[in-house]
């Protein structure tokens, strides 16, 4: 027999520490995650800037940073990838916005387990400190890439940074996994048990669906990575041989035998592929929410959107082998992974059709959140369409581990997901801080960022076709690659401009937090529950009241309604116009 979960509406805590540091309020925790991700994204972006400078001017000595050697370059790319994937793309959309918005959107006073929520944030924070520490230990940060393939990552003498730096790297990831498992449990329980009266599953905003499905993916994926990471630590420090066969490094026979380097790849990508969707699904939810709101039209094909996300989540666990077509894995299994990968393209295409269908015959308003949502769709299409190339093993013969792959995943899980984060920031900022962000600067930021990211990442596809291998610190050693340097130079300049434009965002964010014009409770004339409560929401979200839901999440332009939008808490609209 199920026991109903009860959450006591808590009074506002007193004292700075309980209110802002060790808070159990999901809104404070959401902001903590967000600002952690903001710090992390600047570290990650700075590392990419150093990489782009080194690739073009390999011998330049930078002030403060010093000389970037080939091994330093590899450390930069390892840390860039790891910090971006874990501490930005997993942290901001889910931990940040999911935490802040999900309970309010389902009409709950808090997450199901507020203390666990606080614990998962602070665990993530510790993970971040540990990975940053890897820069400062002897030997520096590891050089094995964010995928950490053994034996390179498993043998301390395989390269600089493979000593303590690599141990800190894998420890940080293990800590992050623990935090994500706690968060995932909390999100799933909250969504299933704490919905307000009338908030049936098929009335949940698509954002809630996306965070819910992401949490399920996280629960299934991070456990595997955690185990894989512990085995790697054992191989590295206790002489076990899970991943390491008999090898000779620098002429020294290592004390390992019988391990399989491919085992790590299977475990890593069993996590790693769902991780792609962990990064992008919340962006899909946000894009759906914003496109419907700013087109003043119901979302096109709500149920199709839900089923598409569910099937993306489902197939997401069956395609990991497409990262391994060239790995020495059985060429027969490549067939299965390839077909299943093509299958996952189908729900992704459905989502795109439905976003376009939502805008068709709408009244599109171009406030900054909508600009970013439109940018998200554009990037999702561009990044998505290189997928069917890479999903074919026969084309991977040419494209695997080239810049084509780097361009593909940066567009879709990097920049598209970041556009989702930007869209969400501009959209929920008024609710979070009670003030509006500056529209003009928001638009300028958008136009430079969209053009800039395309200028950086589209040329990578050309480079990849020409055979430019990734993770090369210089292009001077291979003649055919030397010819491609001018294109790399162009990308570096584009990166300078795009990165500089992000300062506009940061200034706008902090300036508006204190000086922006006051926001009303529902500045976008949106329909979901967070817009029914005051701005910013009280500690228990709805000021002692419990909302009752009568409508679907996207009732815009309902014929005969007094306004062009009907809130979820308004009296039920007749189910006309289906």
């Amino acid at each position: 027999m199920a026991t109903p979960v009860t959450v006591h509406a808590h009074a506002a805590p007193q004292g700075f520490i309980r209110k802002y540091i060790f808070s159990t309020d999901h809104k404070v925790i959401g902001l903590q995650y967000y600002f952690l991700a903001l710090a992390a994204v600047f570290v990650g972006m700075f590392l990419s800037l150093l990489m782009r400078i080194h690739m073009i001017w390999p011998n330049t000595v930078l002030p403060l940073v010093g000389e970037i050697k080939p091994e330093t370059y590899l450390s930069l790319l390892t840390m860039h990838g790891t910090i971006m994937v874990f501490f930005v793309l997993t942290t901001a959309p889910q931990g940040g916005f999911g935490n802040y918005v999900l309970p309010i959107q389902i009409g709950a006073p808090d997450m199901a387990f507020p203390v666990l929520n606080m614990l998962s944030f602070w665990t993530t924070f510790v993970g971040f400190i540990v990975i940053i520490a890897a820069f400062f230990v002897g030997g520096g940060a590891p050089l094995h890439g964010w995928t950490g393939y053994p034996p390179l990552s498993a043998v301390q003498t395989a390269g600089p940074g493979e000593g303590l730096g690599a141990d800190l790297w894998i420890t940080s990831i293990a800590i992050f996994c623990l935090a994500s498992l706690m968060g995932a449990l909390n999100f799933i329980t909250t969504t299933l048990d704490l919905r307000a009266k009338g908030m049936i599953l098929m009335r949940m905003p698509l954002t809630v669906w996306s965070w819910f499905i992401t949490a399920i993916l996280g629960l299934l994926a991070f456990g595997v990575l955690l185990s894989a990471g512990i085995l790697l630590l054992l191989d590295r420090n206790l002489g076990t041989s899970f991943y390491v066969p008999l090898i000779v490094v620098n002429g020294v026979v290592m004390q390992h035998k019988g391990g399989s380097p491919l085992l790590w790849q299977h475990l890593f990508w069993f996590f790693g592929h769902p991780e792609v969707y962990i990064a992008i699904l919340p962006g899909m939810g946000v894009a759906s929410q914003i496109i419907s709101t700013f087109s003043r039209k119901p979302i096109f094909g709500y149920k199709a959107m839900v089923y598409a996300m569910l099937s993306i989540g489902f197939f997401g666990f069956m395609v990991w082998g497409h990262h391994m077509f060239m790995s020495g894995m059985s060429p027969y299994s490549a067939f299965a992974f390839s077909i299943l990968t093509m299958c996952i393209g189908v729900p992704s295409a459905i989502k795109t059709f439905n976003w376009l269908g939502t805008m068709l015959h709408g009244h599109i308003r171009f406030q900054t959140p909508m600009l970013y949502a439109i940018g998200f769709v554009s990037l999702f299409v561009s990044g998505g369409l290189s997928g069917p190339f890479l999903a074919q093993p026969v084309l991977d013969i040419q494209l695997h581990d080239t810049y084509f792959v780097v361009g593909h995943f940066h567009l879709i899980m990097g920049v598209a997901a970041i556009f989702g984060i930007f869209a969400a920031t501009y959209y929920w900022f008024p609710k979070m801080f009670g003030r509006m962000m500056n529209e003009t600067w928001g638009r300028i930021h958008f136009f430079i960022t969209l053009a800039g990211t395309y200028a950086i990442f589209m040329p990578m596809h050309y480079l990849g076709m020409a055979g430019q291998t990734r993770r090369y610190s210089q292009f001077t050693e291979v003649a055919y690659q030397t010819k491609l340097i001018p294109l790399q130079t162009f990308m570096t300049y584009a990166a300078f401009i795009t990165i500089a434009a992000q300062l506009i965002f940061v200034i706008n964010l902090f300036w508006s937090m204190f000086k922006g014009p006051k926001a009303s409770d529902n500045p976008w004339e949106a329909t979901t529950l967070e817009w029914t409560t005051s701005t910013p929401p009280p500690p228990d979200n709805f000021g002692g009241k419990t909302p009752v839901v009568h409508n679907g999440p996207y009732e815009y332009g309902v014929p005969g309604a007094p306004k062009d939008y009907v809130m979820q808490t308004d009296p039920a609209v007749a189910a006309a116009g289906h």
Partner: protein
Amino acid sequence: MGLALLVLIWLITLVSTYFFVAKTWWLPVGAAQAAHWIDGQFALTYIVMGIVFLAAQLGLGYIVWRYRETPSSPPVKYSHGNTTLEVVWTLLTAVLFIGLNLMGSTVWASQRFAPAEAGAVQVEVTGMQFAWYFRYPGADGTYAKTTPKLMDPSAGGEAAVGLDPNDPSAKDDVVTGTMYLPVNREVDLSLRAVDVIHSFFVPSLRFKQDAVPGLNIHLHFKPTAIGEYEIACAELCGLGHYKMHGMVHVVSQEDFDKWLAAREAEKQ
């Protein structure tokens, strides 16, 4: 704002497409039998995805401009979607994507499922930080034993791959730092790595395969044009990854025989 967005999205789309169509940067000219099939499948995928790319991006730009909110906009069309449409585009996408995939799979199968032709030239490729070594088994057609204890990367050549001199079949094994292959003859490749994972990538020959410690991976391919082709390591293998470079010389059968005989002579 709608117009600015339309212009930007169209501009990005058309400029990106221009460089694909103009082939300013493109696959290197293929010099192996598989190139014909791989490039054909690439072209097909590229045309299909190119059309979808143009349609989706140009459509997106058009829609955001056409349906911008103006004082004279007609009321929005209140609709929750259209199930028939959903089913149609789901099926269309599924047929398109999966069909494309099945077409490419025959190429994959021909290279990997069947063994090499009889009379293929045997070469063993060994990757180590940060060099490639190539071993030819000699007249006896047998690779001699290699022993980890004997491996000395700093010495290069036979010592680097740990060739056991006590094995009788080691006498005619030739180990070189440059790969020579006869043109129009199948190559039966064995791929090994001694320390970490490397990847043997020869763009012009449309060949790539990871070399994994503990595995001996067999693959075959056939070079079809005489020339010199660069090898680039494609799997991150440590600080010298970027300079783990090598050359494949594809030569006539006579030149290949002469070259191999000269290496055998050097060894004696």
